[in-house]
């Protein structure tokens, strides 16, 4: 019918049968719990990190509500300050360890890396499943420990406070230690997968940028996370045996802990933000229907950020009393990271120029990202510059800055990614209008929450305060109202996705017009992703896509590209379990 309007040879993989569809190809709870399918593991991770985010988000609202009044509004009584301290510790620890770090690599990455590569699964499917269970166990242990012991150290566990407080630091750090292994396993798996399982024809520079970003992230995960593990073990040893590394009472030096901690945790910031860059590169290119601008610069800048990210941890300690020379060197190194980050933003803008932009929900998030991340990045300059950092360090300016990077950056990219790949993951389309309204609410709510905090910080409001001087009240109240709006927006976005599961239209293979390989298989993908190794071309070459208005989908029109030889042996890996 509609194909009459399309050129001859238009190809579309159609819809998967129930037996092909990875969601329905086997049923029963055990088929999920023991699955080795990266897509199911990715989906389970998605449910996990979203639950963690919900808990962390409610705690954030509690914090903001408490700060409605200078004397504290939410919590009252003699223990109000204690409760507040525990709540912000819980919020930070859950958001960092359970949400931001695993969100994109483990949830979206697990689903996308093999499909984008045209592979059937990751390199080590069993390791992949074990990393999920480690995360689940670690998360359960961590959350239980945090809630039961009322940890009040802040997510950074700074010594000597953490070695002297009577809350259960040991249980919580053990939780973080276990979560570290999950992170390392995921990173290791992706490195192996990307190194060894690219299909014929996919050279490094034919890889989608999301894969470059994931690869760079994985390098950091594998190299930096062990340092955190060792640091946390040393912290436990210090608490139990007083070995005298961190606690001055036993001839230790508390600043040593900060060096160790930030040697992991600064690169960890890039574990959070690099995959987000990858997502945004995909989103902007696909929804502008235009070749990504400066592919190589973006790819190289991911690697550059991953490497430079290891050299700048000292900028968290400008006021701690390092020598002047060390401080200045760290400041200089810090500025080097801003160059590759800026390059990416310029490239995204250039990609939109002369494109054909569709203002879809994912694109709305991508635009928000560019706006918010640019603010996050530019405000980082105030903190990297020594003279201004001395004034702004440990104030609300820092709080606002890192929320712009992590929430405005990672969370927004994560949401954009979820909305972009949702039709692929679940095979359903959501309501675009409602999706866009939710994105707008999130954008407004987020700015309402954190823009006032830049002013608060510049005016000298210290962070982690349960009560504050009355002159800061108005700005705090603005921030709280912003947070409530942000909460509404996020809930709205969640509802849009859930409604699509029930009422959504069936998704075509390629609803947006993407060229990367995941759009060449059905939505949702078949159990083994591809029948045969897919044809690999430039992942951002949009010449051969045609819009099929009748069926609201994009189809590929060039059939004559050389297929992989038919003689390729059919691989049925051991983990396939005899199924195809």
């Amino acid at each position: 019918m509609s194909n009459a309007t399309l050129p001859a040879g238009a190809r579309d993989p159609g819809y998967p049968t129930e037996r092909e569809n990875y969601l329905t190809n086997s049923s029963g709870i055990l088929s999920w719990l023991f699955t080795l399918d990266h897509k199911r593991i990715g989906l389970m991770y998605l449910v996990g990190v979203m639950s963690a985010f919900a808990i962390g988000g409610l705690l954030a609202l509690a914090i903001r509500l408490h700060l409605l009044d200078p004397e504290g509004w939410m919590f009252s009584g003699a223990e109000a300050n204690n409760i507040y301290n525990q709540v912000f510790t819980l919020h930070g620890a859950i958001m960092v360890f359970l949400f931001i770090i695993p969100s994109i690599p483990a949830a979206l990455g697990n689903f996308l890396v093999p499909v984008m590569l045209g592979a059937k699964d990751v390199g080590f499917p069993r390791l992949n499943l074990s990393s999920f269970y480690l995360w689940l166990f670690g998360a359960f242990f961590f959350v239980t420990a945090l809630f039961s012991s009322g940890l009040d150290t802040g997510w950074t566990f700074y010594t000597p406070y953490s070695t002297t407080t009577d809350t259960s630091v040991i249980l919580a750090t053990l939780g973080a230690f276990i979560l570290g292994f999950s992170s390392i396993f995921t990173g290791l798996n992706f490195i192996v997968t990307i190194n060894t399982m690219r299909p014929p024809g996919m050279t490094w520079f034919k890889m989608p940028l999301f894969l470059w970003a994931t690869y760079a992230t994985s390098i950091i995960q594998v190299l930096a996370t062990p340092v955190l593990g060792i640091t946390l073990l040393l912290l436990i040893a210090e608490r139990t045996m007083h070995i005298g590394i961190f606690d001055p009472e036993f001839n230790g030096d508390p600043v040593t802990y900060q060096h160790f901690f930030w040697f992991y945790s600064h690169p960890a910031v890039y574990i959070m933000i690099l995959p987000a860059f990858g997502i945004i590169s995909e989103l902007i290119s696909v929804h502008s229907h235009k070749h990504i601008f400066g592919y190589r610069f973006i790819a190289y800048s991911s690697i550059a950020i991953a490497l430079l990210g290891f050299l700048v941890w000292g900028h968290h300690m400008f006021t701690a009393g390092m020598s002047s020379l060390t401080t200045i060197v760290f400041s200089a190194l810090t500025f080097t990271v801003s160059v590759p980050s800026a390059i990416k933003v310029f490239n995204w803008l250039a990609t939109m120029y002369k494109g054909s932009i569709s203002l879809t929900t994912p694109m709305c998030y991508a635009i928000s990202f560019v706006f918010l991340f640019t603010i996050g990045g530019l405000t980082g300059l105030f903190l990297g510059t020594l003279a201004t950092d001395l004034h702004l360090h440990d104030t609300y300016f820092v709080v606002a800055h890192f929320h712009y990077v992590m929430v405005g950056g990672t969370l927004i990219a994560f949401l954009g990614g979820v909305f972009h790949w949702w039709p692929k993951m679940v095979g359903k389309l959501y309501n675009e209008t409602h999706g866009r309204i939710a994105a707008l609410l999130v954008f407004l709510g987020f700015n309402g929450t954190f823009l006032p905090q830049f002013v608060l910080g510049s005016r000298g409001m210290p962070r982690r305060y349960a009560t504050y001087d009355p002159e800061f009240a108005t700005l705090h109240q603005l921030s709280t109202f912003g947070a409530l709006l942000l909460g509404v927006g996020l809930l709205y976005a969640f509802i849009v996705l859930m409604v699509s599961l029930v009422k959504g239209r069936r998704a075509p293979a390629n609803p947006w017009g993407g060229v990367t390989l995941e759009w060449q298989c059905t939505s949702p993908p078949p159990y083994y992703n591809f029948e045969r190794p897919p044809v690999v071309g430039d992942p951002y070459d949009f010449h051969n896509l045609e819009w099929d208005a009748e069926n609201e989908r994009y189809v590929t029109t060039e059939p004559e590209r050389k297929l992989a030889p038919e003689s390729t042996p059919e691989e049925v890996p051991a983990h396939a379990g005899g199924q195809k």
Partner: protein
Amino acid sequence: MFPANESLAMTFPTLLADLNESFWFPIQGSSFAEEVDWVYDLILYISLAFFIPMMAFMAWCLVKYIKARGTKAESQTSHNTPLELTWSIGPSVLLVWMFVQGSISFLDMRTPPEGSYDVGVQAFKWGWTMDYGNGVFHPELHIVKDEPTKLSMRSTDVIHSLFIPAFRAKKDIVPGRYNYMWFKPTVASEKISDEELAKLKKQSEGATWDYDMHQVTPEGYTFFDLYCTEYCGKNHSEMQTVVVVHETQAELDAWIKANSARGSDVSQEAWGELLYNRRGCAGCHSIDGTKLVGPSFKDLYGSEHPLASGDNVLVDENYVRESIIAPKAKVVAGYQPVMPSYKGQLSDDDIDSIIAFLKSISENAPSEPAAEAESEEESAE
């Protein structure tokens, strides 16, 4: 709780209207402030010079290039090396400028001039003690205008950080070492008239002095806020004190002299109560029976307490003195050994005064001296 809310309504509009403050910053109270604000503005304007055109460009693209679905893009240009090199290298030059400016100012802020006025600072959970030498300790920081001042800081427990927003100065205080900072205040505090002060004193009679509500110190000086900005546990947000900048050295000397010891016309109980409020006791020990970090002082003197070690102890002169000098020696059961030692910071008369104060608020104390104390207190007021 209520007074603070009242003060919120009262003081907030005046504070925003204060001509000394800009939208972004508190008042410029030290020689660094101008320098830091200048660097801040430099970065702000460079950032805006990038941010506004970039966002305008994005908005323009959105207006111009939003197309119906299925429309092909006008161009598929994939790269332009000269352009990309320009926007990689161009901003780098500005970054170097920011870095250099920031570092120059930073080095100024790191090197105290010779002969700076030296004040010792001790930070503890959750309070400050400034050491003016010759046995004068006070929680407020009093310094002289246009006089370079160096703080030699130490912490008795965890990491704290001293931050004076008006001075744009901050430094962590790490236990186990001395950390130093310096600044030169440029704006002196003002002193309100005696009548006004008497009025405020009458208002807050019976309660501890609320700096935020009155916006002056108990001696009638306007002040700058001094915060702890490194998270240090439960009452981190209460760990605040104030900075008073005196016009002349003579004024500061007079203030120091007035605070050096108990005057002959002040009773021991009154002096003890003053020390209780001034030296951080009030943060952990209530006088109304509330359990805070440490045991309440109400009815403490003369009572018997079980210790963490299992023994019992009678709270008498000896025990109080020992607890002030060596607080970890005999810890009361149910409390953490977290109190800092006041060894060398309180004179014998100070300790005697605190003991006298404890006696005056305890029902368990021998009755005769207590009655005497009350009458003495009244006469002192």
